[in-house]
């Protein structure tokens, strides 16, 4: 196992907290746990028990994807 835990800070001006939450729900089954902590400026994800390298990157990608889709939907457009 190359790495088992990761901490990712998503800046709230760039990532919607609900998008990070959706990504956490999607990746939850593949790791031991994903804990989210919201601060004024960041949503911090503590990922534990990753059994595959790159899972944290994929999780962050998913959070960005959800952010873009939701941001555009809120503006009345499509992704």
């Amino acid at each position, binding site marked *: 196992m190359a790495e088992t835990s990761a901490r990712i*800070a998503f*800046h709230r*001006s*760039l*990532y919607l907290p609900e998008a990070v939450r959706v990504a956490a729900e999607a990746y939850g089954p593949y790791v031991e746990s994903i804990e989210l902590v919201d601060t004024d400026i960041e949503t911090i994800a503590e990922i534990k028990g990753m059994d595959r390298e*790159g899972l944290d*990157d*994929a999780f*962050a*990608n998913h959070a*960005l*994807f959800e*952010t*873009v889709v939701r*941001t*555009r939907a809120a503006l009345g457009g499509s*992704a």
Partner: protein
Amino acid sequence: MTDITQELEELTYSTDGRRVSFTLDEAIYPRDAVYGAAYLFVDRAFVFLTRPADDRIEVRLKPKEESDKAGLEKLAGEYANELLNQVVRVRVGESTAQIREYYMAKAFFADSNQTSIDALLAELDAEELEEDPLEISVPWEDAGNG
């Protein structure tokens, strides 16, 4: 409009051999443009955004496939091109927003057009009824010869 090409010439990237990163001035590269370009790259690369300063966005791209230096350079170049596309798209959208709003408003609220269309339809209806009480259509050729 300011000279976008001149502004974008300043776009440079750095690499650590595994990923490339750009630090962008949000005044030149709006967040919508950064999102638009990122959205098109999430299937090929892991994209992560950070905010190193209030008006700066850092974009990190890590290819999903194993990549050498040339591959990273290619990825950076393609992202830069797409970012330029998206910046132009956003700016054109902003600069034409008023015109679009004007046409939408005109289309929705201009009664005069609707009135003239209604009048024209009524006029056509009236003509048909006068010439053809049963409203059986007559081909143009027959009508001209007869």
